[in-house]
């Protein structure tokens, strides 16, 4: 159990590519932090720097009270779960679980106790004597988890651990990992591409872009008050509609006073666009329907508004019966408008 602190951490590959630009982050003891961001934004790099698999160009990584910059991965007392599991193919499941403990010269009875315990928690007892290749993807994933928990490390590091599983199993394992992490109370850093994982698992969500942190916060806080245009467009599927403020003002016949002059772009969540007028102060736009995507529980409606370059997406519950070419009235409550600075793209207080 320990906290993890990164201060001014920077990573430059071969003196050329800078993957992480001086980044600060503190992770409290027992917390599960999820790193999300587009491909290539440096999530894996950051995780591997914490693990000790990648050197730290400058800055400091602390686990607990120890500065670990120069420590080998094993000395940092962390456990890592890899995307492709990286189980040792020639060892049985039991040997896979034991290997890390044996290398630390854990006494035999203690090894057996921990392996039995981990196998029980993860329900992999029937497979202990099988080789990894005789297991299904989901079972391998459990073994990979088991290898992490038997070590009882200070922190778990996950690099997209569920991305090789099918959607259903992913949902199941997501809940399970989250429960396990709560029970054990082990500090965890979890890298993912999956919005659902990010939103549901995180105590603290870190949105990264281009080697920098865009926003840190509780998942709902990040979702409801994105700190920048990038976060607004990235979080949610689909992300916010981003509309230039002057264009919107022209079409809607003015914007509410809460939208200040500095506002360059207005963000609107698809679920905040209503087809019927709400009884709050709102904007109204006339639009023409382009396409409807039926998900079952909800529908995504794509429409274009005369005078706007990009389409507007809206989310409406149930099945939306509409034909392309149909005219729609879009209603957006004033309170649901997110304003972003014209120059910096940062959120304007509202």
């Amino acid at each position, binding site marked *: 159990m320990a906290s993890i602190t990164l201060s001014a951490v920077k990573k430059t590959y071969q003196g050329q590519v800078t993957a992480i630009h001086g980044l600060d982050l503190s992770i409290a003891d027992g917390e599960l932090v999820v790193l999300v961001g587009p491909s290539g934004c440096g999530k894996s790099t950051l995780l591997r720097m914490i*693990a000790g*698999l990648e050197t730290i160009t400058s800055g400091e990584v602390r686990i607990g009270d120890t500065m670990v910059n120069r420590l*080998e991965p094993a000395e940092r007392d962390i456990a*890592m779960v890899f995307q492709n599991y*990286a189980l040792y*193919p020639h060892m049985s499941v039991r040997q896979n679980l034991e*290997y890390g403990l044996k290398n*630390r010269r854990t006494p035999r009875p203690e090894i057996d106790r921990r392996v039995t315990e981990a196998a029980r928690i993860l329900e992999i007892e029937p497979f202990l004597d099988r080789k990894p*290749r005789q297991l299904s993807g989901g079972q391998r994933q459990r073994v990979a988890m088991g290898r992490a928990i038997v070590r009882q490390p200070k922190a778990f590091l996950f690099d997209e651990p569920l991305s090789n599983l099918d959607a259903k199993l992913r949902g199941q394992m997501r809940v399970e990992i989250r429960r396990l992490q709560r029970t054990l109370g082990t500090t965890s850093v979890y890298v993912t591409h999956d919005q659902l994982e990010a939103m549901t698992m995180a105590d603290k969500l870190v949105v990264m872009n281009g080697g920098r942190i865009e926003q840190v916060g509780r998942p709902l806080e990040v979702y409801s008050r994105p700190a920048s245009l990038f976060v607004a467009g990235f979080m949610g599927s689909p992300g916010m509609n981003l509309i230039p403020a002057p264009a919107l003002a022209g079409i809607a016949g003015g914007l509410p006073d809460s939208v200040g002059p500095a506002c360059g772009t207005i963000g609107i969540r698809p679920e905040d666009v209503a087809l019927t007028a709400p009884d709050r102060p709102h904007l109204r736009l006339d639009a023409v329907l382009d396409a409807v995507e039926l998900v079952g529980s909800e529908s995504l409606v794509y429409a274009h508004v005369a005078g706007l370059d990009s389409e507007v997406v809206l989310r409406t519950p149930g099945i939306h019966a509409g034909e392309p070419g149909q005219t729609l009235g879009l209603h957006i409550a004033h309170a649901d408008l997110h304003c972003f600075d014209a120059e910096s793209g940062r959120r304007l207080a509202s």
Partner: protein
Amino acid sequence: MVENRPFLGFLTHLVLIAGVIVVAFPVYVAIIAMTHTDVTLNSGAPLLPGAELISNLIAVWTFDPPGAPPFWLMVWNSTLMALIIMVGKIAISIISAYAIVYFRFPFRTLAFWIIFITLMLPVEVRIIPTYEVVANLGMLNSYAGLTIPLIASATATFLFRQFFMTIPDEMMEAARVDGAGPLKFFRDILLPLSRTNIAALCIILFIYGWVQYLWPLLVTTREEHFTLMMGVRQMAGAQEVDPQWNLIMTAVVLAMLPPVLIVIAMQRLFVKGLVETEK
């Protein structure tokens, strides 16, 4: 060419069978010769088996032909040479492949290319300079002289390098997180994973060492270091007395045996390795 005409089929079979006879006939003659006495053999090559097989097989072990050391000593020398070359080559190449694939050190690429270039320089090509070096180091007439120049091997290094590169990096990283240092990773993970590659190389390299003829001929002048391949030739070339063809042929057939046996013995491991990939 794929027409199904009976006459063509007959013709192709005829050619094939003729080919087999040409290749197999000398071997057949040698095997038949194992079963006769030297008296019979000196008056012509019989084509039907005789009754002397067992006595020849016993006599050959103490057979001491003129101009060559006793048969058993040559078998010992050849075995030792082939084994040293096999073990030495595998040990050196797996270690150098490990270094090249898993470690960053200055001139790593250069080291790799130098190893690569030696692929184009087998012993036969560099035989004079190699002889010079071995002679200057005083290694003529020794097992070291017989084996060391043949051990440095680019092919095996290459093979292991290719194999190591197919092992995902995460395997090494998982081992590092699990507290395995470079030696432990090599011993606990890389070696067991390379088992089938090692078996395959054992076969190839043992046979490579066993059939060496030119190099032993060059570096050994004293009889006690003669190997079987060169010894057999010496036996047949002896001048003063009638050659004992029955024993010479027995020696020849026995010399063919180890490669055959090792292929048969290792084949099962070979196939097993191909069937159950462990990656």
